[in-house]
């Protein structure tokens, strides 16, 4: 769009405005080009070769062989399945818990400000520490969770939550949701505050019940934030790594081996960079589509205008 108020920088000396603009962008653009764009290309290049540090000096071109190997391996499909299950449970959990927190924090009561501040506590905790914390809580011998259930009489003896396949993944989801739900709560709370109050008044006059008001007014008004949360959370959960490293190491067996963990293992334990890189590329491809939707959603909201 043509803009009449186009101006020159306050003083660019003898440099033309356009050159000045590119000069200002050079450091950021070069860093990103060198440390993101080049590696992506390089990574694609590696994934087309056999590259194993255990066999130094050889780097044969194998075309799509790495991908074909990967897609035929049961390891991959198992990890893919675990990743999908983890992602689905996490996104659903984050949305539900986040909505619950936001609905409570939106009411007016004494101490509301304190509650809103508390929402930031789980958010500020680095995922690695989050993993450490929950691993300690779910400890099989001395953990607080076992202690709590035992003293409430809900279990007869302490259980090894992280050493049983089903409970291990559920504990991971629980820990991840605790860390991520505050983000959803904050975004949803902002959405709730933007709903005009007279909508609810009008609904009350029409004798709409609480559930109906929630379905007819609240949910439709929150659609956009919900969409943003779902997309971002899907991307984040699909790449989960930190808490897997700290809490389960992919186990027991391979029951919590997600794709990122598989990529890490193949590359830095198996020293097979070709295969590891292929796993990593699959993660990138799976989340790429969502990322595009996300950018478009931001476009639609007018975050990007020029």
């Amino acid at each position: 769009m043509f803009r009449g108020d186009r101006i020159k920088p306050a003083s660019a000396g003898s440099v033309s405005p356009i050159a000045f603009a590119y000069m200002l962008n050079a450091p950021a653009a070069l860093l990103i080009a060198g440390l993101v764009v080049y590696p992506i290309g390089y990574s694609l290049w590696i994934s087309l070769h056999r590259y194993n540090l255990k066999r130094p000096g050889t780097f044969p071109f194998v075309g799509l062989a790495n991908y074909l190997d990967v897609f035929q391996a049961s390891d991959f499909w198992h990890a893919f399945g675990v990743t999908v299950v983890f992602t689905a449970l996490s996104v659903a959990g984050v949305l539900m818990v986040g909505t619950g927190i936001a609905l409570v924090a939106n009411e007016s009561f004494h101490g509301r400000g304190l509650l809103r501040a508390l929402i930031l506590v789980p958010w500020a905790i680095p995922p690695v520490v989050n993993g450490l914390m929950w691993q300690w809580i779910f400890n099989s011998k001395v953990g607080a969770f076992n202690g709590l259930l035992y003293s409430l009489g809900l279990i007869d003896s302490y259980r090894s939550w992280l050493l049983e396949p089903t409970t291990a993944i559920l504990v991971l989801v629980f820990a991840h949701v605790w860390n991520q739900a505050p983000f959803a709560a904050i975004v949803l709370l902002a959405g709730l505050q933007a709903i005009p109050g007279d909508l609810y008044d009008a609904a009350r006059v029409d004798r709409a019940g609480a559930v109906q008001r929630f379905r007819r007014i609240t949910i439709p008004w929150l659609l956009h934030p919900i969409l943003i949360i779902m997309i971002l959370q899907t991307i984040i959960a699909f790449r989960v790594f930190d808490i897997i490293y700290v809490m389960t190491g992919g186990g027991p067996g391979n029951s919590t081996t997600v794709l990122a963990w598989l990529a890490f293992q193949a590359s830095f334990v198996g020293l097979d960079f070709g295969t590891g890189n292929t796993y990593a590329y699959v993660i990138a491809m799976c989340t790429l589509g969502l990322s595009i939707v996300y950018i478009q959603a931001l476009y639609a909201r007018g975050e990007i205008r020029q």
Partner: protein
Amino acid sequence: MRSGNPHGRARIPWRSLGLYLAALVVSAYLLAPFAWLVLTSLMRESEALSVPPHWIPHDPTWANYRAFFWPDVTRQSASAQAIGSIGIYLRNSFAVASAVSVLNLVFGTMAAYALARLDFRGGRALLLFYLASRMVPAVAILIPLFLVMRFLDLLDSLLSLVLAYTTFTLPFTIWTLRSYFQTIPRDLEDAARVDRCGWLRMMRHVFLPVATPALVAAAMFAFMASWSEFLYAVIFTSTEASKTLTVAVSQFATEFYIEKTLMTAGGVLAVLPPLVLALIFQRLIVQGLVSGSVKG
């Protein structure tokens, strides 16, 4: 609206009782797990291992925190060696996160100013380029970046982390700064230009002071992201020269011989800086999360 109460009986305020109950449950959910971590870190090892657990330390002690900085004396366990360097890891984390924040401010302000104020060919494409680079998952470029760092002989150096984190955080910084800069009236700069003041001086004395909230927010998000990062830190670093606190904490959690009280104290230590920042800058963070959706 006043609801009549003709019989004079005390009405039980069910709605407000329910509300306070819900608020209590939510608060407990948000706080209890972390509170338990803090409480354990104030116990002695024997108390932390008691069954059933002691919720409140009977005899609270700072010994676990002291052990990090004055490794001594009464403790002879295998953990002693592992925890002796925690001061160094703490310093590494601070150095990396601070450097990333500063670089974000400098490079981010430059790029964002150009994108917000100078109407130049390719500006829109650059903005999309930055935005798209944010969508690349870290794990997808981990191996090539590792090889690049090895080639540059930067492995196990703080610089490798500073470069990587700066690159990952810049797009968000540029994006937030740009949208904030656009809200600043142009008259300010026009007035400065009349005074024949140079661009740098104009920025320093006129433009940037007005943009302070956005600059603080950007620096803080960059700091917190760098402080919490783990994947690159665990791959790039190997010795005291560059190991960060998150890597040390992950070792606390995965090596069984470390005392549980030291493990929890280390965890608390690693949480404190981002937690304090989050609580101080609560308003800025909420604004940032809502408008830009950080931590992507």
